């Protein structure tokens, strides 16, 4: 057990976003809090919310029960809901040093953002006139609308970052020149050059490279492709090229990939979208020759089978003899990979690897040239947006340390909580992942409108509530009296008697809070819901409700899992407070409102057999019963506190009106 371990989603995220934090904020409907958490580490929430490769979801422990949380779509939801919100103050210029960033993709702009926030003066150079790198020129609009990228880029420029566009390293300026005016140069020019295979006929007209094609389309061109298109490859670029061809009017688009559907790098959702849009995918085949007269007319392929593992750990495709076949193609789009433009980099004096990437010392991005740093796809080769952001962040921080002569910060190790035990998995209710609403096929293939429409608020909250809050459960404090009550009552059997005090394996705890509500020493702290916060929340709610001076004030506690979207029903006199299971509320939480002169307290629980935490209802009932007894004894009366449903609320209300206001407000005791 390691209590410093973080949820697997956070450990897997290259920038270690506090996923659990923002997902749980959405679970209680607080999108502002969610976006604040996201923005602490990520200046591109809108983009990542749409096209992130979501390593987090691959690590999510919910998959042990059913399916991972739709983390990416929740990020998108948080960002879509808060587009106008100003989250970051314009930083003060605190340092003299000027920094030049070459390349305005996610790596370069993230570095510019972080360095500007630290107080440096930053200028970004890009060969293009539009900033954003592949986000604005490469990834198609139907997956990532350009206006959203522009907003994110503008937010970064608003921090005082200067942009110089249409200027190319190697053509319009050199590293040497830059180093005269700037104290450091940050190279983030990405991977821009498509790899071309050496088959016969690759030079024919109509054989084009995917990245260049997609960039052209992003810039507003509409190349004429013809009817039959063959796309070769299986990554994002291949699928994007195919789906873009469909939108440009091609009627017959075929993707040919040399491995199987299980290995395809684009992922199952992209493949599904492509197939829905009428794109054919041929697996286990590779081209041998392109033929035609000046212009390509057909491609000959050979069938493949999977052989032994290669260096990447995937099974190597091997050709099957005498299995060649041909398809007609007016255009062939090659999407077999791309790499940095090594020429320019070499000419600038940088050390380059055999695959054309810039060689750096380590995570600090230090290159062989003094004061020159590099990050993103130009260092790693083609990766992903989130990895480019992570790289930009790390190198920006290293640069700051370098300038301020601080020691390099050791890379923090994010250890993931271990898997859930099988016994616990069986006790957790299944709950279906929310489906992303999307445009109908016929509505999408004629234009570049965004296909995925985003979750509704209801969907987002329900999806967020699927999160298991990994690692945010119960922690035993030193004042544990070792009574072992928690050991006896936990619905999952997680606490166990330790040598001196009870211990709770945080990696397995489901954060129901029942043990905390029952601990006689108040020694169990529920990280998700600190006791002080509960009190403060109640006091604030009562204060606010008082201002409306209702004759009778009722506090209503409702189970958020039972009523995910918000209070179960509206009533003028009731001020609702949501709880993630009412079973975690102790007796004091039911009587304390009366001390604050509230007139009545109602509890709306989930349905009996639907408790997220198995025993929650039973514990609520027991705590309420005991609180009622106390209310009777002190003369406030047990009838002011009750479990209700929407149907019997009016009975309760009538009874309460007959009882009148809280006797603490009149000083008249109720005879019991």
């Amino acid at each position, binding site marked *: 057990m390691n209590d410093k371990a973080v949820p697997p989603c956070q450990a897997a995220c290259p920038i270690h976003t506090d996923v659990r934090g923002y997902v749980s904020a959405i679970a209680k409907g607080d999108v502002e809090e969610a976006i604040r958490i996201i923005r602490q580490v990520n200046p591109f929430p809108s983009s990542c919310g749409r096209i992130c490769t979501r390593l987090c979801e691959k690590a999510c422990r919910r998959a042990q029960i059913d399916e991972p949380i739709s983390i990416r779509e929740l990020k998108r939801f948080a960002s879509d809901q808060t587009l106008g919100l100003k989250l970051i103050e314009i930083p003060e210029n605190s340092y003299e040093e000027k920094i030049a960033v070459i390349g305005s993709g996610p790596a370069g702009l993230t570095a510019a953002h972080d360095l500007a926030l630290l107080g440096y003066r930053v200028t970004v150079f890009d060969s293009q006139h539009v900033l954003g790198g592949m986000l604005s020129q490469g990834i198609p609009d139907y997956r990532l609308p350009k206006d959203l990228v522009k907003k994110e880029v503008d937010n970064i420029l608003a921090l005082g970052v200067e942009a110089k566009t249409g200027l190319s390293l190697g053509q319009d300026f050199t590293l040497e020149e830059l180093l005269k005016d700037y104290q450091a140069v940050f190279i983030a020019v990405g991977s821009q050059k498509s790899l071309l295979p050496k088959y016969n006929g690759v030079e024919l007209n109509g054989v084009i490279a995917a990245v260049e094609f997609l960039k052209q389309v992003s810039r507003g061109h509409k190349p004429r492709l013809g009817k039959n298109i063959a796309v070769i490859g299986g990554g994002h670029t291949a699928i994007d090229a195919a789906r873009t061809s469909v939108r440009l009017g091609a009627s017959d688009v075929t993707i040919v990939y040399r491995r199987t559907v299980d290995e395809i790098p684009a992922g199952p959702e992209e493949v599904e979208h492509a197939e829905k849009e009428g794109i054919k995918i041929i697996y286990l085949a590779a081209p041998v020759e392109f033929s035609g007269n000046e212009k390509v007319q057909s491609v000959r392929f050979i069938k493949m089978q999977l052989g032994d593992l290669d260096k990447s750990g995937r099974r190597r495709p091997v050709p099957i003899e005498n299995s060649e076949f041909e398809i007609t193609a007016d255009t062939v789009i090659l999407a077999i990979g791309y790499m940095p433009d090594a020429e320019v980099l070499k000419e600038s004096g940088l050390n380059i690897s055999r695959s054309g990437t810039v060689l750096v010392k380590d995570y600090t991005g230090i290159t062989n040239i003094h004061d020159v740093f590099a990050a993103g796809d130009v260092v790693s080769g083609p990766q992903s947006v989130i990895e480019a952001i992570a790289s930009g962040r790390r190198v920006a921080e290293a640069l700051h340390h370098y300038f301020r002569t601080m020691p390099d910060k050791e890379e923090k190790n994010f250890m993931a909580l271990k898997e859930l035990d099988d016994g616990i998995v069986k006790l957790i209710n299944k709950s279906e992942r929310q489906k992303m609403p999307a445009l109908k096929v016929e509505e999408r293939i004629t234009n570049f409108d965004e296909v995925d429409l985003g979750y509704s608020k209801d969907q987002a909250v329900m999806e967020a509530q699927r999160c298991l809050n990994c690692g945010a459960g119960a922690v035993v404090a030193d004042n544990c009296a070792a009574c072992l009550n928690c050991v*006896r009552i936990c619905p999952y059997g997680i606490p166990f008697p330790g040598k001196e005090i009870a211990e709770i394996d945080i990696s397995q705890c489901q954060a129901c809070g029942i043990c905390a509500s029952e601990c006689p020493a108040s020694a169990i702290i529920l990280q998700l819901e600190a006791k002080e916060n509960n009190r403060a929340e109640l006091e604030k709610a009562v204060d606010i409700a008082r201002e409306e001076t209702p004759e009778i004030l009722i506090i209503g506690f409702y189970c958020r899992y039972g009523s995910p979207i918000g209070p179960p029903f509206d009533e003028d006199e009731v001020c609702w407070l949501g709880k993630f299971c009412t079973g975690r509320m102790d007796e004091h939480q039911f009587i304390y409102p009366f001390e604050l002169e509230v007139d009545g307290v109602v509890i709306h629980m989930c349905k009996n057999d639907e408790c997220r935490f198995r025993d929650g209802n039973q514990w609520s009932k027991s705590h309420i019963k005991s609180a009622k007894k106390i209310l009777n004894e002190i003369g406030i009366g047990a009838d002011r506190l009750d479990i209700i449903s929407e149907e019997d609320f009016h009975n309760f209300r009538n009874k309460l009106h007959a009882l009148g206001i809280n006797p603490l407000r009149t000083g008249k005791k109720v005879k019991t």
Partner: protein
Amino acid sequence: MIVAELKPFKEIENMLRDYKKVMVLGCGTCVTVCMSGGERQVELLASALRMAGRLERNEIIAGEKTILRQCDPEFIDQIKDEASNYDAILSMACGAGVQGVAERLAGIHILPAMNTTFIGVSDGQGTWIEACAACGDCILDRTGGICPVARCAKSLINGPCGGSKGGLCEVSKNNPCVWQQIYARLGKLNLINLLKGMSQPKTRPVHPRKLVNPKNAFG
């Protein structure tokens, strides 16, 4: 462990009738374990007292505090200064704790919030049973580890009274006949012959008893 339960609320209220500032003092050991006098119960009782006080037009300030053990002067000293701000201390400890505090903080009136009931063991979730009468002359070696002094309604030490039915005590039908339990246990252990011996009548201990451990109490 010592088991205690909260006195009826009315009784506590009456005790505090003449006090304005009361410290509700929990004990972090036995009564926390039996869930009647620990930090959580302090919070509840203090809240209840404040509210009841307001209704009686006798508003009281009820402070909340819990120390690890009220039967040790060193722990009591931890609240010495704070206690001087109060007119009375309502102790949620066992009788020993109440006296420990009364001895140490002699200038303040200490009142018991609890009835101390027995020395007992846990019998599963939320249940404790009496197990030892602190008689001062243990015979558990002869009774299969089951104490008839504490667990037989008549405290018989040389066999059952003969009134049990279906294994249940004739005095309180919810309780098992402890002699039947002893017999069964010894049978399992193949030690029935132990029952042939006689236990001598116990002499009632002379109160107050005192324990001096010569090794660490010199002089």
